[in-house]
C-alpha cells in the first residue's frame, strides 16, 4: 500500500467526541480487586480516590482520560490529533487486528492522548499514555502525537507535562518505532533551548524505548510510588548477569535512591505539586 492510500483511507473508527463516554475498561465492573492487598473495593469508591487503594495505598493504573480529569480544570481539555491512527509500515502479520481489538477495548485510537488545558488556571500542554493500548508501546503515532504536542507547547509558549506509561517501543513497527525516540527527543531539545518547562512523570510501567527517550528528559523527572521504571527487562538482566535482583529493583523508590529521579509523588499530591512547580516557573496567570 502506498503512502497516498494511507492518506485516502477512510477512517473506520470514530474519533473520541468531546463529550466522550467513559471508555470501557477492566474497572467498569461494580467491584475491583486490588492487585496488591487483594481487597475487594467498590469501583466507584476507587475512582473517587483516583484509583488508589483505600486499604493499602496501592496505585492502580488509570486510563488516560481518568488521569486528565484528575489533573486539569473541569472542561478545559482540548484534545489534539484524536483521529490519528496507526498504519502498518512493515505489513506486520495481525497488527491491524491487534489495533482493532485495543481500540474496541479502550475506546482510544492510540496509546497516548495529547492536548491542552488548564491546571488551576495555569495553561499547559499535556500528554498522557494509556498502558491498556498495546501496552502503551510507542510506534509512529505515539511518537508523532508527542512531538506535535511539544511543538504546540513551543508555539504557544506553554509548559509541557508528560505522563508516561509504556512497555517500550512498538515491535510491530520495527525500526520506525526506534526512530520515534529521536523524533520526540529532538522536539524536546527545541523546548529546552527555548527555556520552556518540561515535567516528566513516570507511571507504572515506564520501560525500554520510552524510558530511554522523552520520559527521562524532564527538567524534573518524577514518578508515582512503586512504578516499574527501567531500560532492560528484569528477566533479561537476570539471564545476563546470573544474579538475584533486589525486590525493589527498577521501582520508583529504587531509582530515587540511585539518583535517577527528583521525587516520588503520590497520586493525591500530584496536582498540587505540579501546580506549585508551574507557579515557581511563572506560569500561573495573574
Amino acid at each position: 500500500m502506498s503512502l497516498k492510500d494511507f492518506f485516502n483511507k477512510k477512517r473506520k473508527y470514530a474519533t473520541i467526541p468531546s463529550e466522550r463516554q467513559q471508555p470501557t475498561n477492566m474497572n467498569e465492573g461494580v467491584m475491583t480487586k486490588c492487585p496488591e492487598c487483594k481487597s475487594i473495593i467498590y469501583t466507584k469508591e476507587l475512582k473517587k480516590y483516583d484509583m488508589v487503594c483505600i486499604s493499602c495505598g496501592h496505585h492502580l493504573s488509570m486510563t488516560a482520560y481518568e488521569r486528565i480529569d484528575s489533573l486539569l480544570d473541569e472542561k478545559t481539555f482540548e484534545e489534539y490529533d484524536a483521529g490519528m491512527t496507526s498504519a502498518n509500515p512493515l505489513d506486520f502479520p495481525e497488527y491491524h487486528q491487534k489495533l482493532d481489538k485495543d481500540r474496541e477495548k479502550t475506546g482510544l485510537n492510540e496509546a497516548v492522548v495529547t492536548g491542552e488545558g488548564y491546571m488551576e488556571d495555569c495553561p499547559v500542554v499535556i500528554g498522557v499514555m494509556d498502558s491498556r493500548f498495546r501496552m502503551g508501546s510507542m510506534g509512529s503515532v505515539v511518537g508523532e502525537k508527542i512531538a506535535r504536542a511539544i511543538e504546540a507547547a513551543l508555539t504557544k509558549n506553554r509548559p509541557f507535562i508528560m505522563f508516561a506509561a509504556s512497555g517500550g517501543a512498538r515491535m510491530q513497527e520495527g525500526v520506525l518505532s526506534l526512530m520515534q525516540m529521536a523524533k520526540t527527543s529532538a522536539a524536546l531539545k527545541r523546548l529546552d533551548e527555548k527555556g520552556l518547562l518540561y515535567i516528566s512523570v513516570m507511571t507504572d510501567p515506564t520501560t525500554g524505548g520510552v524510558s530511554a527517550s522523552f520520559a527521562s528528559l524532564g527538567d524534573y523527572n518524577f514518578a508515582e510510588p512503586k512504578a516499574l521504571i527501567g531500560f532492560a527487562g528484569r528477566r533479561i538482566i537476570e539471564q545476563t548477569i546470573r544474579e538475584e535482583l533486589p525486590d525493589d529493583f527498577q521501582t520508583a523508590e529504587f531509582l530515587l535512591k540511585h539518583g535517577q529521579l527528583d521525587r516520588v509523588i503520590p497520586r493525591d499530591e500530584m496536582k498540587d505539586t505540579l501546580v506549585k512547580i508551574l507557579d515557581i516557573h511563572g506560569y500561573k496567570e495573574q
Partner: protein
Amino acid sequence: MHSYLPFEKPVIELREKIAELKSFTEEKEIDLSDEISTLEDRLEQLEKDIYGNLQPWQRVQIARHGERPTTLDYINYLFTDFMEMHGDRLYGDDEAIVGGIAKFKGRPVTVIGHQRGKDTKENLKRNFGMPHPEGYRKALRLMKQAEKFSRPVICFIDTKGAFPGKAAEERGQSEAIARNIMEMAGLKVPVISVVIGEGGSGGALALGVGNEIHMLENSTYSVISPEGASALLWKDASYAKEASETMKITAPDLKELEIIDKMIPEVRGGAHKDLEQQVIYIDEVLEHSLHTLAKLSEDELVLNRYDKYQKIGLLAGENVVPSTE
C-alpha cells in the same frame, strides 16, 4: 583462511575442489585446464548467486561474523593522528565505546564508536561492545567537545544493544541514552553515523542521531534482535530467521524505508574478506557526506537533523500531514 558461514559452504567446497585439481595437474603433469576453467566459471556464477542475493538472515550472520572489522579497524585506516580520549568524568571509562580526536584527509574530526572484541579476552574487556551509561556519557562529552571546537562528529555503530545489567540500571542507562539522543539532535556541527555491524536498539541510536546515516550493506539496524523479536512476538526464540525478514532490519530494508541515506557496498562475501577495499568504500561516502554538510550553517545543520527525524513514521487516520510541513 577466514572461517566461513554455513551458507557459504558450496562456494568453499568448489574452491577446494579447484585447488585440488590444480595441484593434481602439477603433480601428474596432466592437462586439465579445460575442466579447471569450467569449474572456475561455475565458481564465479555460484559466488554471484550466493553473495549477490543475500537473504536477511544471511546478512545477520555476516554482521555478526567474528572477524568482521570493528570501529578501531576502520579508524586506523580511515583517519590519521587518531588519539583516544578516555572517561566520562563522572564514573569511569567504558571500553565498549571508544572515542577521540583525529584527522580525516587533513581536517580535524571527532570519532566515536562502539567497540567489540574479536576474541573472548578482548570481548570481556570490551563487554562485547555493549555499553554502560558511562560509555554513553563519555561519547556525549566528546561530542560536546567537538561542538566547542567546531569539528564534525563521525560515529560508528556496532552493538547488540546497551548492556542489560543491574549496575547499568542503577547508573541510569535510560537517562544516558535519552540524553545522548536529545543532545545529538542539537549539535551545531555535522554529525555522520555509520552502522558497521549490528545496530541494536536504543543502545545504537544513542550514537545515531546524525545528519546523515549510512549502513554497510551487510549491517543491521533494529529495534530488537531477531531472536528477541521471535521470543516476544511468537513466544518462541527459534523463529529468528523469520523475524529477521519480517522486522525489516537490513541495509536494503532501511534504505527502502527511507531511514538511511546511503547503503555502503561491501566487498563480496562481507567486509571481513578485504578490509582495505572496504575502507575505500567507506572513505568515499564519508568524504562526500562531509563535503555536503560543510556547506550548511550551524542552524541549518540542526534544522536538517530535526526535519530528518520528524519525517520518520507512517500514519493513518485524520490530519496526518507531517508536523514539519
